[in-house]
């Protein structure tokens, strides 16, 4: 199975030229296009974060004006959520791997796939126009009536930008759903699919059912601002809480769009790095669907203090507790998979272990917030900020990095420096905890979020947090160097450097344009690890 020779006609080589890339219908090329775009936006969002953490080194609001500070945290949120986290794993790893994992030559609708990337770019351009033309200071949550009536910033433009970008998400999800249903190879039954496919499928359901609601909601906000239609303005009989209901109907499931793919990646990495079938495969598969569905029933936990009825709060609180269960199932099953597995400690494993610890903390602190009594004290404090960063960064981004490293040899045909990768994983883990653990304490002690200034006694923890951010920055910048370096100077990767199971490892690294030379017929379950399998490590 080892193939040390770079195939001459991989998807990277032919056809040549910029036009061939910009007009490609190949899902693998589109994945690379997305990779470049979202990395750029990760840097932009990170820049805004740097601005925030620099200000918070001192208790006074002395670095930026209050208005600028509002814009910094708003844009950090908007860019990271809509232009990095939501597309990341689905648009990069999903686009690259889904057809291959289904044994297909491409997604169901290749041209729509390309369209989704252009729509993403258009939405990003419009949003950047808002950034440079007055910015946005409403918080990424756009609460009315400030956003729809009073704010002097480019809310309407930003709303249009987010509206457009939503369609990129919708088209991606649509493509994945139809592909999984209609394009699986012969013999590839649902329960032989890799768990990554289940996770992306569940994510796609959320994208389809939730994104349109935020689309119409931001459109309503834009219409309120630009056309003087009144929907959420109390002065005209409107209800701001209605905005919150509509906004969170999508934005809560959106967090599952951000974490479910990560969980799918972890399932793949855990199986490969432990050389073992995932424990409780069907439980893990169904848990993805359960998270996707239950995730739509809990949005009111963002409205506990909004004047929402207590009865509704009770209902949302109970269901929010329930939604933790499928996530716990996954975590137990991954642990059980690694237990007595033949665990190899190559770099992807380091990202996996980081994920498991940080996601657990993030998930458990969600339960604190789901408890109404506690939430009254913790809401809008740094406790919430820490909670969602543990999941989004400690969870989702670590999973993304792990996946990027695991599939890098497949995508590029090159091997990267293991030492550098492990260093990066450690820097990210240490930097992350240093940045965000103090924030749990700060929030518990009452420091509100989105505040530029704070009482003196909070300074030590804030300084630790900002220092951690510096380390985190190093951890993220390092891969930009060694991964890029590997493209030019890295060793050639064999078809299966990790000795893993999965259709993607049966084809060349990098794959040919149409993925498979012969028709694929699947006869084995996923993760069919046998003790005598040969392992080639780069």
């Amino acid at each position, binding site marked *: 199975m080892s193939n040390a020779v770079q195939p001459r006609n991989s998807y990277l080589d032919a056809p040549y030229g910029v036009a061939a890339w910009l007009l490609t219908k190949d899902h693998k090329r589109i994945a690379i296009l997305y990779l470049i775009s979202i990395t750029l936006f990760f840097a932009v969002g990170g820049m805004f974060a740097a601005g925030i953490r620099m200000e918070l080194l001192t208790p006074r609001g002395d670095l930026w004006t209050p208005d600028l500070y509002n814009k910094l945290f708003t844009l950090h949120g908007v860019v990271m959520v809509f232009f990095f986290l939501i597309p990341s794993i689905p648009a990069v790893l999903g686009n690259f791997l889904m057809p291959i994992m289904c044994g297909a030559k491409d997604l169901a609708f290749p041209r729509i796939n390309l369209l989704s990337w252009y729509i993403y770019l258009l939405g990003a351009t419009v949003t950047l126009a808002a950034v440079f033309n007055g910015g946005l200071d409403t918080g990424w949550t756009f609460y009315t009536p400030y956003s729809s009536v009073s704010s002097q910033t480019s809310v309407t433009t930003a709303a249009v930008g987010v509206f457009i970008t939503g369609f990129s998400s919708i088209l991606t999800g649509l493509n994945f759903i139809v592909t999984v249903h209609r394009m699986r190879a012969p013999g590839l039954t649902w329960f032989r699919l890799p768990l990554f496919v289940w996770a992306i499928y569940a994510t796609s359901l959320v994208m389809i059912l939730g994104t349109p*609601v935020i689309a119409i909601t931001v459109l*309503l906000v834009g219409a309120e601002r630009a056309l003087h239609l009144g*929907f959420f303005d109390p002065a005209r009989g409107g209800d701001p809480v209605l905005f919150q209901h509509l906004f969170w109907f999508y934005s809560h499931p959106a967090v599952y769009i951000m974490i479910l793919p990560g969980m799918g990646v972890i399932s793949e990495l855990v199986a490969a790095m432990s050389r073992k079938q995932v424990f409780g495969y069907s439980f893990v598969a169904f848990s993805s669907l359960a998270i996707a569905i239950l995730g739509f029933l809990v949005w009111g936990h963002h409205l506990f203090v909004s004047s929402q009825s207590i009865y509704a709060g009770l209902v949302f609180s109970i269901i929010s507790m329930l939604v933790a269960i499928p996530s716990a199932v996954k975590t137990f099953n991954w642990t059980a998979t690694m237990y007595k597995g033949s665990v190899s400690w190559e770099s992807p494993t380091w990202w996996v272990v980081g994920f498991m610890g940080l996601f657990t903390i993030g998930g458990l602190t969600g339960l604190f917030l789901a408890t109404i009594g506690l939430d009254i004290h913790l809401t809008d404090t740094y406790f919430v900020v820490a909670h969602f960063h543990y999941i989004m960064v400690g969870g989702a981004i670590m999973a993304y990095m792990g996946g990027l490293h695991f599939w890098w040899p497949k995508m590029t045909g090159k091997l990267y420096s293991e030492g550098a990768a492990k260093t990066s994983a450690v820097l990210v883990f240490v930097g992350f905890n240093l940045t965000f653990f103090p924030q749990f304490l700060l929030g518990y002690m009452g420091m509100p979020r989105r505040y530029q200034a704070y009482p003196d006694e909070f300074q030590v923890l804030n300084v630790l947090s900002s220092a951690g951010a510096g380390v985190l920055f190093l951890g993220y910048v390092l891969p930009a160097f060694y991964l890029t370096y590997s493209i030019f100077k890295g060793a050639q990767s064999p078809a299966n450097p990790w000795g893993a199971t999965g259709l993607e490892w049966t084809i060349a690294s990098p794959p040919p344009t149409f993925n498979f030379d012969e028709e694929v017929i699947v006869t084995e379950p996923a993760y069919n690890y046998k003790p005598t399998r040969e392992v080639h490590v780069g």
Partner: protein
Amino acid sequence: MANPHEHALPAAGLTHTPGHDAAHAHEHNPNLQHHFYSMEQQLEASTLGMWVFLVTEIMFFGGMFMVYIVYRIAYPEAWVHGSNHLKVSLGALNTGVLICSSLTMALAVRAAQIGSRRGQVLNLLLTIVLGTVFLVVKYFEYAEKFELHLVPGPDFNSTGVIPLANDPTHQQLFFSIYFMLTGVHAAHMIVGIVLMMVILVMAMRGRFDSSYYTPVEISGLYWHFVDIVWIFLFPLLYLLGAHLGAHGG
């Protein structure tokens, strides 16, 4: 969720397309895209894809219906009074027009299925005409609202056409959601008409026949959906106060 291949597990390497007697790998329909193995799979996937898209449209309009519902429950009288400013006759006319257009659309798809170029062209043309009639009527309705100062904004009710007793503040809410709902619907109609023009040109060039009519089918699905939205908008916006007999006509 049946995988079309499941009942006929082929020997290694052989492509097997169910439902066809003699279709082999080298006899591809020129309209078959390379990543599909049969025209049937292509049509099924496209139809499924369009239905998934329509689900997103359901949720998209759904957000506006949610706003309508919440405020109607809160301000029922303002809703009735607001509705009375709308002309039922025009709403009913438009409903009839769209229902006709759904018929012609269905007939256009059928014509493509049986390979009748004349049937396709005639019915697509009728669909476009009817859709345009709808938009023209809408234009006149909107124009009248502007004349009566019933458009939300600083100018709303500046001529006092709504007496204070009839809750102009919340009627402004009604008109906001009226314009939003019908405006977004009209935007969808415009997209639909442009889409139909493209399909019409393709049909005139003989692009579609019984083996390939996917674009007509899925455009038709979109068109019918836009009709269905109007089927709900008509009673919800126009008929609230009909039993009170005080309608604008």
